[in-house]
């Protein structure tokens, strides 16, 4: 790699002929690890200056100074957020929306279930509903005497309830 440009910049740096921008280029160059041996002796100078630039006062010192001149130190400000009525009701909207979805799905499922039963009945296929009804009818048919006796009792009682 050709370091001629850097070497020229460095020569001008020693002679105080570089601009601030050119000095920034040199600083950036010497921050990298891969510096040729011929330029290595100067690397520590730029790194040292970088480190010096990071020296600073503590936050406590700054707070103390502000108090000394009668200003309050900067505090962490938590900005209050304005919450609108619509925003506050958002959870309810969500709950209502969820319920509406569940009801729609339930209704659709029930509708589909009913239609399937009807369709099966129309096709002569025994469905769960039809089979239940047939079981009830069978139980009634298996007790004809009891049924007729109950009917007779009912008709007499009903007639007695009305004045002749």
């Amino acid at each position, binding site marked *: 790699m050709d370091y001629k440009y850097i070497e020229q910049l460095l020569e001008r*740096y*020693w*002679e*105080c002929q570089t601009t*601030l921008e050119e*000095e*920034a280029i040199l600083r950036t160059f010497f921050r990298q690890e891969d510096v040729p041996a011929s330029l290595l*002796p*100067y690397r*520590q*100078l730029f790194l*040292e*200056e970088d480190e*010096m*630039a990071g*020296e*600073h*006062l503590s936050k406590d*010192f*700054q707070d103390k*100074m*502000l108090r*000394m*001149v009668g*200003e309050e130190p*900067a505090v962490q400000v938590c900005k209050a957020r304005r919450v609108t009525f619509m925003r506050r009701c958002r959870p309810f909207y969500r709950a209502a929306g969820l319920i509406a979805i569940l009801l729609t799905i339930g209704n659709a499922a029930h509708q589909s279930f009913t239609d399937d039963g009807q369709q099966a009945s129309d096709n002569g296929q025994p469905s769960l509903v039809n089979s239940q009804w047939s079981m009830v009818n069978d139980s009634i048919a298996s007790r004809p005497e009891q049924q007729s006796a109950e009917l007779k009792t009912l008709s007499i009682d009903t007639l007695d309830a009305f004045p002749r």
Partner: protein
Amino acid sequence: MENISFRTTVMPLSDKLFRLALRITMNRAEAEDVVQDTLLKVWEHRSEWEQIDNLEAFAIAICRNRALDIQKRAGRNTENLDEMAHFSSQTPHEQLVASEQISLVRRLMDALPEVQRTIMLLRDIEGKTYQEIAAMLGISETQVKVYLHRARTKIKDKLNNGL
């Protein structure tokens, strides 16, 4: 100048002032005291802030004078760079031990005469133009360049000779 306030205009200068005071006094506690005195002095002049062209240059001049006063009062002189010659007489092991305690380059820079050290700080660390440095130190731009050239040449020679 408009909207000058201690918090937004003067306080942001405190780290720069601290670095300058530290390079002169070489002592953190003393440098903090210098910055505190400087900031209070600037605060005392608050009625004149509108008339001061460059408040930063004003603060830096106060800071430097205060730091130099402390040095003078303590009877300390700036170390001469020639005294750094003893580094080259150290064995490699001794040099390694010394470098672990404090960088040799930093000691080299700290050993420069105060005005050269201050100008090098303002240019290389704070990124000031020659014109700004001249205004801060109350000297001409040509003088700034002469002092800076001397400082860089000394550093270069020492680095070339392996300290």
